[in-house]
C-alpha cells in the first residue's frame, strides 16, 4: 500500500517539476496531464473512486485537451523573452522553495503521531461506501443542493463568457469592409463599415 503512495507521489512531483521547468509549453501540458493522472491514482488509494474517475474524465480528458488545443492553435513555440525584467525572481524562487520544503519536513516529523493515521481500509464499515457515487450523490442532492445549482449557473456563465471573449470581432468587420471592393457589381459602395 505504501508502495502505491510513493510511486504515484514520486511521479506527481517529477511531472509537476516538469511543468515549471520545460521551455516548450506542449511538454508542460504533458507534464500536467501526467500529474493529473498520478493524482487520480492517489485518489484511488484514498478510497475516492468516483473522484478519481471524474478527475481523469474532466480534468485530464477535457480541461487539458482545451489547453492543448489552445497551445496548438496559437502555435506557441518555446520563445526566449526579449525583455526578461524579472530574472532575479528565478534566483529567489529556488531558495524559498527549499525553505518551504524544510518547513513541510519539520511539520511532518513533529506531528506524525499514531492517532493521526488514516484508518485501515476495510476496518471501519463506513469506509467501504465512502467513495461511491451513491454517497456523493446523496449528499449533493439533499444537503448541498444549492452549491450544485450554483455550479450549473456558473458553468452557463462560463460558456457565454468564453464564447463572447473568443469571438473574432475584428475579422468580421474587416471582411465587411473588404466586400464592397471585391464585388462592385453586386453591392453598392454605400454598404461600408457604417454598422
Amino acid at each position, binding site marked *: 500500500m505504501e508502495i502505491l503512495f510513493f510511486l504515484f507521489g514520486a511521479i506527481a512531483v517529477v511531472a509537476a517539476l516538469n511543468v515549471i521547468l520545460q521551455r516548450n509549453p506542449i511538454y508542460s501540458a504533458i507534464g500536467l496531464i501526467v500529474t493529473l493522472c498520478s493524482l487520480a491514482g492517489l485518489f484511488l488509494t484514498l478510497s475516492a*473512486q468516483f473522484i478519481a*474517475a471524474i478527475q*481523469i*474524465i474532466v480534468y*485530464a*480528458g*477535457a480541461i487539458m*485537451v482545451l489547453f492543448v488545443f489552445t497551445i496548438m492553435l496559437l502555435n506557441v513555440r518555446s520563445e526566449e523573452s526579449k525583455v526578461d525584467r524579472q530574472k532575479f525572481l528565478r534566483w529567489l524562487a529556488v531558495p524559498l522553495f527549499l525553505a518551504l520544503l524544510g518547513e513541510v519536513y519539520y511539520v511532518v516529523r513533529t506531528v506524525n503521531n499514531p492517532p493521526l493515521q488514516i484508518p485501515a481500509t476495510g476496518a471501519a464499515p463506513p469506509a467501504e461506501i465512502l467513495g*461511491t457515487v451513491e454517497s456523493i450523490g446523496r449528499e449533493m442532492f439533499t444537503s448541498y443542493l444549492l452549491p450544485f445549482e450554483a455550479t450549473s449557473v456558473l458553468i452557463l456563465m462560463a460558456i457565454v463568457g468564453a464564447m463572447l471573449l473568443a469571438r473574432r470581432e475584428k475579422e468580421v468587420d474587416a471582411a465587411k469592409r473588404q466586400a464592397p471592393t471585391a464585388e462592385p457589381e453586386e453591392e453598392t459602395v454605400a454598404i461600408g463599415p457604417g454598422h
Partner: protein
Amino acid sequence: MSVDAGFLIEALIKIIIVFHVVLIILAYTVLAERRVLAVIQNRLGPNRVGTFGLLQPFADLLKFIMKEDLIPMAVNKYLYLLAPIVTLVPAFMVMIVYPFGPTVRIPYFGQVDLYVTRLNIGLLFVFALTSLGVYGIVLAGWASNSKYSLLGGLRSSAQMVSYELSLSLSVIGAVMQSGSLDLVEIVKNQSGAWGMGWHLFWFQPIGFAVYLISAIAETNRVPFDLPEAETELVAGFHTEYSAMKFAMFFLAEYANMFTVSVIATVLFLGGWNGPFVEQLPWLGLVYFFAKVFFFLFLYIWLRATLPRFRYDQLMNFGWKFLLPVALLNIVISAAIGVLTF
C-alpha cells in the same frame, strides 16, 4: 482487502487469455471488414492467403513488421513516438472490465467469473480511458509537423470531445435503471423476462440510438470519419506514420470499435443474457459474442453504405441535435422510472 497470490495468479491468467482472445478477434475483424465490404460492393475480398483468406491477418502483420520504420526529419521525435503508445494503451486497458459471461463452472478450478475484474465504477473507467485516447490523436497531429496532420488531428479530436458529451449522457438512462455503474450489475439487471428483459426494449430505445450514433462519431468511423478519410486530408493525423506505428493506430481504432460494441451490448442489449442462460451458463458467452459481432458487422455495413458528413454538419449535428436529445432521454427515463416505481 487482502491481495494474496491466488488472486493475483487468477487475475494474471485471465488478463493473458482476454488479451489474446481480443487481439485475435481484432485481427480477424480487419479481415472481415475487407471481405464484407467487398461482398457488399459486389467483388471478392482478399481470399488468396489461406482458405477464404483466413491467414490474411498474419500476412498483414508480417508486412507491418518488415516495413522500414521511417521517422521523418522535421517531426518532433519525442511526441511522434509517444502518440501511438498513448492511443494504444488506453484502448487495450479497457478490456479488464468487459463482462464476457456469467459465473461458470470449470472442472478443475471451480466457479470462475467470466470477467477479469469488477469495478463499481466500471462504466466511468471505460469513459475515462476513452477520454485519454484523444491525446494520441492530438499529439500525432502536432508532432508530425505538417499541415494535413495538424488539421486532421485537431478536427478529429474536436469531434471526439464533442461527441463524448452525448455519449456519456446517453448511457445515464440505462445506468439509472440499473442503479449502478458496475457493468456486471447492469447486465444482471437485464435478466428478467426469460433473458430478454434488455434495456433496449425496456424504455431505452432513444438512449440506444443516441449512444450508437455518438459512439460511431467517437471512434472516427463512417459516416463521421472526415478527419481521416483518404480523399479529404490525405490520411489525417496518421499521414506521416508508417509500418508498426501506423499498425498501432489502426489496431487502436479497431479496439475502440470493439469497446464501443461491448458497451452497447452490455448497456442496451443485455450482455450475456438470453434464453436459457441460467441453465447453461456457457451459452451466455455465445450470446455475448454474437451481439458484439452484430455490432461490428453494423459498423462495417455502415461503412459500405453511407457517405460521410462534412465537418460543420458533423459538429452541428453533435451539439445542436444529439446533445438535446440525450438530455431529453434522461428526463424521459427518470419520469418512467418514477412512474413505474
